[in-house]
């Protein structure tokens, strides 16, 4: 029953779009408009409604586009979630030394803009004494610079997307361009994002970032192994954020930040697997989440190892 509903809805929408396409073709095909105004792209369906074949076509089109842009072979996958997986993340604040290796590993893996700079991870430095009982977010300094870290008397708290179970950002989005996947990752369809930035206002963790200009990624640094909902290069005018390296983690790999952390403070895995490190730390360690009072239910747990 529901299925038929769904089919009817999408067919009628598709017909409408086809008709509209002709009209729009006439309107936007003006001389002097953007170099690659791709109609197919404009009328692409919502990611969640694409059939297998349509998705395949979309991915191929994107690969061609990126190959042209960056002059090397690209893969854009749309690997789905694994059955029986709910991801969780742990960060041991008694180990983190504030070296920022994770920040730059993330930039490289996830094709964040170098200029202007976008960083998904911000490492906040606190006075150890001030955070004995309570972490006041606003007191954290992301700009610290020392010869060596850890600096005497400091505590470090890296913050990125908390992958909330009750994501305020998703609720705020007027176009359903962002949602939570079955494995718990909150993703963005950059092709449906209209850049209104309501999600950024809604996020209590400052985890979302906007491309105010065309992102700048040197061709030789771009990572060509991408996922539709993850690290494929973004365009000017869309919001982006950490996706727990969806292009890696859906293939069973650890995130780039876990791999990069020299002290082993970062933990990632399947919360439904009783033998995973994330389950172990939830069961055996003292954990806390950021801004618990907001009831956003982060799946990102800070702990004392």
């Amino acid at each position, binding site marked *: 029953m529901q299925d038929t509903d*769904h089919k009817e*809805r999408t067919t009628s*929408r598709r017909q*409408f779009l086809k008709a*509209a396409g002709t009209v729009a073709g006439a*309107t*936007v095909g*003006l001389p*002097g*408009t953007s170099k690659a105004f791709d109609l197919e792209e404009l009328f692409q369906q*919502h990611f*969640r409604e694409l059939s297998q074949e*349509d998705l395949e076509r979309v991915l191929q089109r994107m690969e061609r586009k990126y190959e042209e842009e960056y002059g090397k072979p690209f893969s854009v996958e*749309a690997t*789905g*979630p694994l059955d*029986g997986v709910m991801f969780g993340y*742990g960060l041991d604040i008694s180990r983190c*030394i*504030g*070296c*920022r290796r994770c920040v*730059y590993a993330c930039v490289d893996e996830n094709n964040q803009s170098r200029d*202007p*700079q*976008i*960083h998904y991870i*911000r490492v906040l430095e606190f006075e150890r004494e001030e955070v004995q009982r309570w972490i006041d*977010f606003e007191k954290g300094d*992301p*700009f*610290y*610079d020392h010869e060596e*870290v850890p600096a005497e008397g400091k505590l470090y708290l890296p*913050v990125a997307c908390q992958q909330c179970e009750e994501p305020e950002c998703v609720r705020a989005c007027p176009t*359903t361009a962002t949602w939570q996947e*079955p494995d718990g990752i909150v993703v963005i369809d950059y092709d449906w994002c209209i850049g209104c930035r309501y999600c*950024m206002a809604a996020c209590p*963790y*400052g985890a979302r*970032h*906007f491309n*105010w*200009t065309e992102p700048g990624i040197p061709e030789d640094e771009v990572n060509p192994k991408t996922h539709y909902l993850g690290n494929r290069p973004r365009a000017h005018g869309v919001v982006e954020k950490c996706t727990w390296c969806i292009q890696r*983690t859906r293939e*069973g*790999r*650890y995130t780039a930040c*876990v*791999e990069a952390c*020299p*002290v*082993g403070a970062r*933990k*990632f895995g*399947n919360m439904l*697997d009783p033998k995973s*490190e994330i389950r172990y730390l939830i069961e*055996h360690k003292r954990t806390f989440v950021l801004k618990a009072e907001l009831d956003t239910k982060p799946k990102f747990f800070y702990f004392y*190892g």
Partner: protein
Amino acid sequence: MHPHSIEPRGGPSLSPPVRWTIVGIAVLAVGFFALGGGPLKQSTVRAYPSRPLAPEPEPVLLAPPPVDDEFFPCEDCHEGESADPEVRELDEHEHVKLKHGDLWCLDCHDRDQRDLLHLSDDSPVEMSESWRLCTRCHAKRIPDWRAGVHGKRTGYWSGRKEYRTCVVCHDPHSPLFKPLAPKPPPIPASQIHSPTATRSAEMNDAGH
């Protein structure tokens, strides 16, 4: 963070084609939503096939880096001698600066077979298995380490996961983790000169 802080100050003016495109899209959007667009009721993606999880293999312990050839095998110099148990300034091994509780060499290194370490009952331990030595005094750390929570796992959370022995991170002679030079801090808004980029960085500063 306040909602109003993200409003762009004096947004860029739009060229006529862009403006027309926006009007066009707005018209299309109305038709689109009227025909049943809007919030998606599906809970998952249509195109996703079922992907069962493979059974997890046991984690793989990576071999520690081998002890420097310059000193190994130790027996090159120490063959057939029994160590002098006295705590003293050594004429050799200056680079070994002990800063580990108040241990002395022979608490860990075997007195008669210098290529080996030893446990409290004097049973020998190969250098490559030095984690067993650490277990003797730091047994509390071991379950966390085995679970991948102390130390570091890499590779595959689902598949081949690798973990490391203690000496990869802790020099047994002075085990505190060595300080590192941090990577550069993020660029503060005030140091980015392009007006649009400034906004981007301010935005990023505001969110933390």
